[in-house]
């Protein structure tokens, strides 16, 4: 596996762990006065996921697979 791909796999599993935010479980405080912190965290998490996938698309796009699909040699 190439180096950027390995890093993305590690970050992916790190994000999966961060999804469990056990530290917010009992926290009823509000962010910006209207959003429960348990919800605000996961909204932020979604935005981080978007940034993560944007980077994956930019740096780990499978160009060779694309060429193969278009009829290139194995």
């Amino acid at each position, binding site marked *: 596996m190439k180096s950027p791909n390995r890093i993305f796999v590690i970050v992916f599993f790190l994000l*999966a762990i961060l999804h469990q935010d056990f530290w917010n479980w009992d926290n009823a405080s509000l962010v910006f006065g209207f959003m429960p912190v348990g919800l605000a965290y*996961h909204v932020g998490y*979604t935005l981080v996921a978007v940034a993560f996938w*944007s980077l994956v698309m930019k740096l780990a796009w*499978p160009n*060779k697979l694309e060429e*193969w699909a278009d009829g290139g040699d194995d």
Partner: protein
Amino acid sequence: MATLWVILIYLAALLAFAMGSKRLFRGTSSDYFVASRSIGPFMLLMSVFGTTMTAFALVGSTGETFETGIGTYGLMASSSGLIHAACFFVIGIRLWAIGKRHGYVTQIQFFRERFKSDGLGYLLFPILVMLVVPYLLIGVIGGAKTILGVTSAAGPKPGMFPEAFAATNGGIPPWISGAVICLVVLCYIFAGGSRATAWANTFQTIVFMAMGVLAIVLISNKLGGFGAAIEAAKASHLVRTPTAEAGIKPLTFLTYMFIPLSVGMFPHLFQHWLTARSARAFKLTVIAHPLCIMIVWVPCVLIGAWATGIPALEGTPPGAVLGKMLGILVKDPIVVGLVTAGVLAAIMSSLDSQFLCLGTMFTNDVVLHKAKRTYTDRNILLMARGFVVFIVVLTYVLSLVLFKKNIFDLAVWSFSGFAALTPLVLAALYWKRANKAGAYLSVIGATVTWFVFFAMSGFGHEITVLNGVMPVAICWVVGAVGMVVGSLVSTAPDEETVAKFFPRL
């Protein structure tokens, strides 16, 4: 009555839109099934997102938050942001490459070729239909519940038809709204097949996203703003602590992560991947899909939490919460009609792709596969449409029988079944040693385990095992172990198969 007129005008506009796309329909069976591989990035995103987000997302998430609290967003939405995109990237792009190189159209066609087994196709077809039907059901039931919610009496608001439909408090009964939803979807599928479906999905996805935003603004205004609305909500619903009233167990929250894997085996998405024009069309979907989920789910979860602070909604069935909120708080009938049209848009944009995909699979993988006679294009289209009508009628009848089921729970069961089958596709794409025996053992093991848990749940209720573990986690492990054991104890695939499906990159 104005509400009903707005809904009817929306449905008519949708039909007109689909008829417009009929002009582009080339009249051939291949155009009917795959729109001649002409779907670009934006339509692919709208189509994939519109199909994935159904009544489950709008009506179900509001109702589930009303029952268990704001943890609902983490359960399904934020995890989907990570895992759906991973499935699109890890499974979708590779499938696209293989589909393009070898000309595959359907999921079953791919698995048959990969595992060199006709029988696997005949085994998979009924299992996929069995899992798609609950997915279809939540659409029809969710739509009918929403229409019932906005048209029936609630608090001081009288029902729309108090004399004609006294049994439903003046609301439109499910047998009428369910029939209308099914008929409209059938009409536009028949108009132009996958092309009409893709256009209609794009149109409907934009409508339901816009109406979701409109709904939250209007409802929050009536509740005194976002801050006042959340202050009035029950404290138990603003955290995830498990109590008698709400909350989620940590193990349940963790094992829910398996459920978004289901997108890796949805037949309609599989078909999108195999037939998309270019791999680059997926880039937008991978990146923007989590954002689209957020735009739809955050308003719904907030509305569900706010609903816990409204005494008039005490005891309301979860599926009716959104409809009742609109009916009680947003009194303007035109706006209520618009938002209801948005809910119907979300529902119908899911139903259409699945109906069409089942017709495609039935025709290509069951009837035409190894057929001894030659069928004309017209005959093929007739068969596909006939099977779609059969599934629509089945869905309609079941929606009436199972109307009281919780649509969030029903959806979770459907998604769990598909998720349990993902070891099959992952092994097919990434493990050269995976073979026919492993595939059979994986499919049979995962399906039997799923069915046992489904029966234990009383056929569609929420259950967890081992102090909070979601059944999907166990079904997935059984499927994965079946694949590994079955493959290792039998002969490895021949070199020709390995060379065909595993490019040396």
